[in-house]
């Protein structure tokens, strides 16, 4: 691991300036270096359209159910063997790192594969990571506008490889909603859990 050098290079200054201009944030004084945390902060946070999906218990679930809490949201599907479990494992680590503050955070997995991801299947899936995680699913007609509102796109592929299993391409960013249910931060795929946890603390 190469340590960031203490002196600012020209590209570093440009990046820092861009980040400061883009999100209007002063550098976090707790940060020993000038390295900005990953993630795009939306300033002001973006209001999302209300929606009604079905949660992993089979109950209706909408944006109102998240208001009052900060939420971390990821779109994926349970037949995804690689990056979906990797990201939910990261969610679990974020939860662990937040400690007692975790009561004020909802961890939400939204299926982009409503055809296979029934509430029962989602329940087993999210609980395999954490009993408090929330799974949401819905018909394609219901889900597509919700996903689009987050800036998420998905596309199922015809089965390949002879197994009848099909795969779904999908946006792999992680989203943080503030207590008002507004989109506040977009984290790129692969953002380390400690960076997400530090950003979430700022929303709490």
């Amino acid at each position, binding site marked *: 691991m190469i340590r960031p050098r203490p002196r600012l290079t020209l590209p570093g200054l440009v990046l820092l300036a861009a980040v400061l201009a883009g999100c209007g944030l002063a550098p976090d004084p707790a940060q020993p270096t000038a390295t900005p945390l990953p993630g795009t902060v939306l300033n002001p946070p973006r209001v999302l359209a209300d929606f009604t999906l079905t949660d992993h218990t089979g109950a209706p679930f909408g944006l109102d159910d998240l208001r009052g809490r900060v939420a971390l949201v990821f779109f994926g599907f349970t037949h995804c063997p690689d990056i979906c479990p990797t990201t939910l494992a990261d969610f679990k680590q974020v939860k662990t790192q937040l400690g007692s503050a975790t009561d004020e955070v909802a961890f939400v997995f939204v299926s982009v594969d409503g055809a296979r991801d029934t509430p029962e299947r989602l329940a*087993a899936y999210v609980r395999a*990571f954490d009993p408090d995680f929330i799974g949401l699913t819905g018909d394609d007609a219901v889900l597509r506008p919700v996903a689009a509102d987050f800036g998420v796109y998905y596309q199922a592929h015809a089965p390949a490889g002879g197994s009848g299993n099909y795969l779904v391409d999908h946006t792999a960013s992680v989203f943080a909603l503030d207590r008002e249910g507004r989109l506040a931060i977009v984290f790129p*795929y692969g953002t380390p859990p400690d960076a997400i946890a530090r950003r979430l603390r700022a929303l709490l």
Partner: protein
Amino acid sequence: MIGLRRSRLHPWAVWMVIGLGILALAGCGGADNPATATPTAGGTPAITVQDAWVRATTGTEPGQMTAAYLTLVNTLPHDERLIGARAEGAGAVEIHETTMQGEMMHMAPVSGVDVAAGASVALAPGGLHLMLLDLDRALVPDDTVVLTLIFESGLELLVEAPVRPLVQE
């Protein structure tokens, strides 16, 4: 930007795992180490498998799927190509690759994985992996799965891959 990148697979970490694996195998007298199907004693050229593991399944009912990961090391004087695999208890195994196109995650089967002479290739989270389909049982941590890796040359390697928990510290 190096400090911002995911540090899941630092080379030193991979080598530490390999080193620990070798120590562990030495400690239990693994003369018939299944992860090294081709004799390597005395540095005999071979294709070997390091750090094989399988992610625990997320459900308990039959028909689950998951991914297996490993590193192929080729000290043979010729190239090899992994063209398929079998897994004990799996209805099918496919070689898949996850790629990112911007923030869009794309996953697709690939026909094979080339391992050039003297090179190594990692099948690791976020990239190449073996997709184990239609499992006849749930896989829980400390289980092992016997994988058979099939190469274009006709070589087959048996690997005993431990099951790791969904969330690893």
